[in-house]
Structures are given as structure tokens and as C-alpha cells.
């Protein structure tokens, strides 16, 4: 198969330069805070996608676009301390628009209003009190016409900014279907394993190591299969089967470690931000940086 034929199965990857000089680091956002915010933004995107009834491939693509945006943004184009939630909303809206399940700006904005409110949100990092026991009243998240119009303009403007930062390359290949093909090839057809593979792949979308923008989908698929088979105690074929899928041992090892570390990472995040909100708004980011500075000086 020629290299062009592989395009559909592969992704653009981050350059070392993009990884080491993310836009936020230029603006003085500490890298652990940036990671927390980015992971929260990815979770926000995931939840919003579910509420909008979008299928997981659209949501996954939107999270990858969201991640690429933060790595690619330059200071001139976009202040990196801008609100994260509206980049999440624009990425999701744009990805859905290109898919078979387009959604309206109004639906997107209503969902994000619900999710970003510290009263109604079910997200732990937005609403530390926890999800409200009863479904929130419609009025609490439906935008007024005036609010909607201005929010819509912001949404569409940020869509343009995302497109500019990505040079209009909206292609994202996800590993999920590749993994299912590999599973069939390996003869591992137990539904429980397949489910676990998909779980690992979805979880990896939140990875602080940015696995989806540093590794090709085939490698992610192989790592998820390796991990799931191991957890389930399934013996796959003998030999270095991952090489059949063009993944070397070193890359597989790195990805498996990365995927396995995710649960611990999320636990630590929840511990660290217990009873606090992760700043997704620009003002919040600034005040969090300020707070940390005070803490350091106070010590």
C-alpha cells in the first residue's frame, strides 16, 4: 500500500517543539496546572458530547482537535489563557458539523451553559458539591436570546481560530475501529476484552501524556489490546504479534505505561482539586496562578 493510502489511518503528530513550548508555558501557566486544565477540558468535551447525543467517534475527534489546538496555538493568534470551555465547545461543534450528526449552535451552547455552571454541572471539577440530586430546571441552562446571540458569535469566532491554528486540517483518525480489526485478526473475540480495549482507548483521550497527538492510531490500538488482554488474563498469540501491526516493543511499552498510569493520575487530580474547581475561565486561571505564587511566597 502506498503512503497516500495510509493517510486515512494516520494522524498529524505534535512536533517536539510544540510539545516543549506549549502556548500556555509561554504565558506563564505552570505545566501541571496546564495539564489539569487540559484534562478537565477534555472531560468537559466528552460529557458535552454525551449530552448532545453525539457518537463517540465525533467526541474523540473533537478532543483530539481540542488538544492539537492548545499545542499549536501561538501567542499572537490567541491568548492561551483564554477560557478553555469555549474552545471545547467550538471543537465539538465543528467536528459534529463535518460528521453525519451535525448539531446546532444553540444545542451546543445550552449544554455548555449547563456543564459550566457551578450549580447545575455534574462535573466534579466545575461543581465540587457534586451533581444536583434532581435534574436542573430548564431555565437554569437555557440561554436568553441576547445571551445566545453573543455566545453564538464567540463560538463561531473561535471555530475560525481553531481552523487557522490547525491550517484547516480537520482530519483525525481514531484507533477504535482499527483495534476491533486487530482483535479479530488475533482471534480475541470475547466481548469483555473488546469492551475493555475501547475503555482504554477512550480513557487515553484524557491522557496527560497526550498519547493521541504523539502516537499513531495503530500503536494506540495495539497498546490497548495488550493491556486489556493482560488484565483479562487472555493469552494472545505467541511471538511479537505487535510487530505485525507495525508497532515496536519500545513504543508499545511506553504506551502501556502511559495508559496504565491514567487511573492513578485521575485519582491524584481529584485529590489535588478536592472541593475546588479547576479553572476553565481566563480569570480563574489568572487567580489560580496568583494563589500559587502567594503560597510559595508565604512558605
Amino acid at each position, binding site marked *: 500500500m502506498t503512503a497516500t493510502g495510509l493517510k486515512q489511518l494516520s494522524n498529524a503528530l505534535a512536533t517536539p517543539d510544540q510539545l516543549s513550548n506549549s502556548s500556555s508555558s509561554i504565558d506563564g501557566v505552570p505545566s501541571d496546572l496546564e495539564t489539569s486544565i487540559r484534562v478537565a477540558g477534555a472531560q468537559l468535551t466528552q460529557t458535552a458530547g454525551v449530552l448532545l447525543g453525539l457518537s463517540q467517534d465525533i467526541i474523540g475527534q473533537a478532543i483530539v482537535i481540542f488538544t492539537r489546538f492548545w499545542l499549536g496555538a501561538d501567542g499572537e493568534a490567541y491568548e492561551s489563557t483564554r477560557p478553555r470551555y469555549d474552545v471545547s465547545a467550538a471543537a465539538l461543534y465543528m467536528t459534529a458539523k463535518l460528521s453525519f450528526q451535525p448539531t446546532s449552535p444553540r444545542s451546543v451552547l445550552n449544554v455548555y451553559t449547563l456543564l459550566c455552571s457551578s450549580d447545575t454541572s455534574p462535573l466534579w471539577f466545575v461543581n465540587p458539591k457534586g451533581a444536583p440530586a434532581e435534574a436542573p430546571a430548564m431555565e437554569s441552562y437555557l440561554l436568553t436570546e441576547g445571551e445566545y446571540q453573543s455566545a453564538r458569535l464567540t463560538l463561531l469566532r473561535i471555530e475560525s481560530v481553531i481552523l487557522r491554528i490547525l491550517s484547516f486540517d*480537520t482530519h483525525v483518525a481514531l484507533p477504535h475501529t482499527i483495534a476491533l480489526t486487530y482483535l479479530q485478526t488475533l482471534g480475541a473475540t470475547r466481548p469483555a476484552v473488546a469492551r475493555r480495549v475501547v475503555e482504554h482507548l477512550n480513557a487515553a483521550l484524557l491522557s496527560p501524556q497526550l498519547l493521541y497527538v504523539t502516537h499513531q492510531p495503530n500503536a494506540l490500538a495495539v497498546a490497548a489490546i495488550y493491556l486489556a488482554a493482560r488484565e483479562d488474563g487472555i493469552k494472545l498469540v505467541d511471538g511479537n504479534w505487535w510487530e505485525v501491526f507495525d508497532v515496536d516493543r519500545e513504543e508499545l511499552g511506553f504506551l502501556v505505561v502511559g495508559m496504565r498510569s491514567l487511573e492513578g493520575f485521575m485519582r491524584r487530580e481529584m485529590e489535588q482539586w478536592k472541593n475546588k474547581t479547576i479553572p476553565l475561565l481566563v480569570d480563574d486561571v489568572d487567580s489560580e496562578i496568583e494563589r500559587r505564587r502567594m503560597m510559595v511566597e508565604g512558605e
Partner: protein
Amino acid sequence: MSASKSRWADEDPETEAIIAARKREKEEKKRAKAEKQRQLEASKAQTDGDGNDQSRNGDSGPPMKRRRLSNDADTNDAEVPENAEKKKQTTLLRFPVREWGTCRHVDNFERLNHIEEGSYGWVSRAKDINTGEVVALKKLKIENSPDGFPVTGLREIQTLLEARHANVVYLREVVMGNKMDDVYLVMDFLEHDLKALLDEMREPFLPSEIKTVLLQVVGGLEFLHAQWIMHRDLKTSNLLMNNRGEIKIADFGMARYYGDPPPKLTQLVVTLWYRAPELLLGAEKYGPEIDMWSIGCIFGELLTKEPLLQGKNEVDQVSKIFDLTGPPNSQIWPGFRSLPNAKSLRLPSNSSASSSSDPPLLPRSRFPYLTNAGLGLISELLALNPASRPTARQCLAHPYFREDPRPKPKEIFPTFPSKAGMEKRRRHHTPEAPKHGQEAPELDFAGVFGGAPGGDTGEVGAGFSLRLG
């Protein structure tokens, strides 16, 4: 990797806490190290002079090659030695290196002259200031749409970026002007489009030349369909040709991905004269067969130099189609009766007269100089039943292309003075493709065969040979 513990759930919370603490420490160190390294690199880059700034501005041309990430190496230090040996034995497929970066500014191009204005934007010839290369610059039309960046433009870029093929126009990059809605596609410049060329030529193409043209178009289309891309606006004015006899499919403003089973899509696609009958009859689900119909129309146009089916409107188009192919019946096109617009269709009663071949051959009188194989191919391409049309791949394998005269080698293809090169390209008389977001009209085809509502002057019951205007 620690292989001893297979599940992560059932661990002792205390040891887990210790492990977590250690991990945190380790990560802290790692982060510090990475930070140090970054600073080192930054200072090094500064001493190097050119620095990162330039590459981030995107002005320095193509981005750097991807390097091995130092982080990866750190984590896997221990595994490298034992791995080194094995690596030599297996060769793994490597994916093409691709990156993303911010758009360049349109000021990197100097506009030379205007070429044409299509339904999806203005095209001009331009020169890359840095390299001196001549390119085609297409400004996307972005009306203030309530839905943000037009999905047609996004699809055009997405499919063009995907469709890297010798017979598809090459999209080099997308650049922007000062405003957010100033978006330009930078594409390879080709001297001609087939429509302008046919208009200028005194004699039609030779049979050998037609085969060369058609093979390239269908070759490009086969690739598109293999990538699950439908073009949805194939016509001679969207086929570009250079002076080396190479044909490239252009204008992906209507193109989109499709699936299997086919998703529900708008029927308002393809320029009227090249639009397949199932679209005209309102099919909500359709597939790549609509592109094959357009190929049939293009084939006919190459033979006669004139567009094959020049309907004035949808109803007239259907009438012209049936005039050429004969009316549909449930034998040659099972199920056409259930298409939305077929309800109003009143077919002549004698239409069941079955033909010996499937699909029936087109009348020989329309293409007097075509060989039998050629007539067979165009009849298959213009089969009313989408299922009877050949796929792009089947089309390429058709005997027509193997019989004499053989396709003329591209290298000895005649050259023509370029319209686009120097002066404004002539405005075509081809109708334009439908606009995105239009509502599909409810069509009343009762008049196609001379019924009353059409209000035409035809005789009742004269059958499909009736011409409307």
C-alpha cells in the same frame, strides 16, 4: 512495565499511596529535568540565531522533520539494549510524517490574474513570493452563514487534503488574509479546463485522446471512491488539464464522505446537466453511482464536443434523459417507482417493451462514430438504474480502453494555447451546481411525457420520443 500485577483495582491502598507518592516524586524530577532540557534547548536555539520564532510564524516553508522525542527515550531506557537486535530483523511500516501548524498569510502570494468565478469562490493565478512558483489561488466564499465556517468549504479542504492522487488537483496549503473569513486554497496551477478547451477546439478529440482523458478521470475517481469520497459535481469545467496531457479533477465544493449503508444526503448536488436520474427523482439515499453517471455525460461530451443532456430545468432534464435512454420500467430499474418524485411520472404504456441487453444500449444514431465497445460503455454509464452502472474500477477494466485505437500516451498529447494563463477565462455557459442548504423542490414530472401540468404543446401519448422545447 511491571508484569506481576495484572489488575489495577485490587491493590492495597497503603502501598498504592506509597507508590503514588514515589511516582509523584519521580515525575517531579522528570519535569524538572525536562524543564532544564527545554531551557538548554531554548538557549541553544537562540545562539543558533534563526530560533523558534520563525518556524512558529510558519514563514520558513515546510516544517521540520519529526525527531524522536526525548521523553520516549527516557522512559524506555532499560529496554533499548535487548531490543536493538530484534529491530534489525523486522522492518515496520512507518506512517507518512505529518504535522499541523498555523496558516500562512495570503501576502506570501502575488496575484497575477483572475481566472474565473465559480459557484464556490474566485480563482486567480498567483505567484509564491518565496519560491516563484505559479499557483492557483481560490478564495472561498464565506457568506455570513449562521452556522459558522461553511461546511462545504470544510469538506472541500478535508477531502482535497485526503485525496492525494496524480489525477486530483493538488491542494498545497490553506492561507488566510487579515480577516477570519479571508480563506484561500493554494493549488497547483493547470493551464486548461476541459470545458474551455472543448469550446475552443475546432474538431473533437480523437478516439485515442478521449481514452487518455477518460482513463485519467476515472482513475482519479476510482481513488476518491476507494477513500469513501463522492465528488458530486463532476463536469468538464471541473476537469483541469496541463500541457503535458495530464488531467486532474478539481472543485471539491460538493464533495463529501459517504458510508455504507449510504447515509441520508441532500439530492441537490451535481450540476443539472450531469445529474443522475435518481437524484432528479428525489432519492434520499444514493452513492458513488451518481459520479459514474456524470462520467457518462462527460464521455458523451468528449465525443461530440457538446454537453450531452442540456436540460433547462429539472423536469426538462428528466425528459432529455428519457429521450436518450428510453423510459424506465420496473424491469431495468426495479424500485424506481418508490422514489419521491416518481409518483407524478406518467410513463407511456408501451414502455415495457424489453430490450435484449441489460442495461439497454443507447441509440447508435446518437454516437455514430463510436465503436461497439464504446457504445456499450457509455450505455452502462448512463444506465437509469444506478445498480447497473459500472464502478470506477470496472470502468477502467472495460474492453473499450483495450481495443484499437489505444489510448494516446500523455507525452504526445497535443498542447493548446492556455486561456487561463494569460487572460480571464471565459465564463462558461454550463449551469452551476446547486447551492448548499437549498431546499429540494417538489417536482412535478407529470409533464415529462407530454401530460397536462407541464403545459407544453406535445401530443398526448406520443411516448418518450417527445421533445419538450
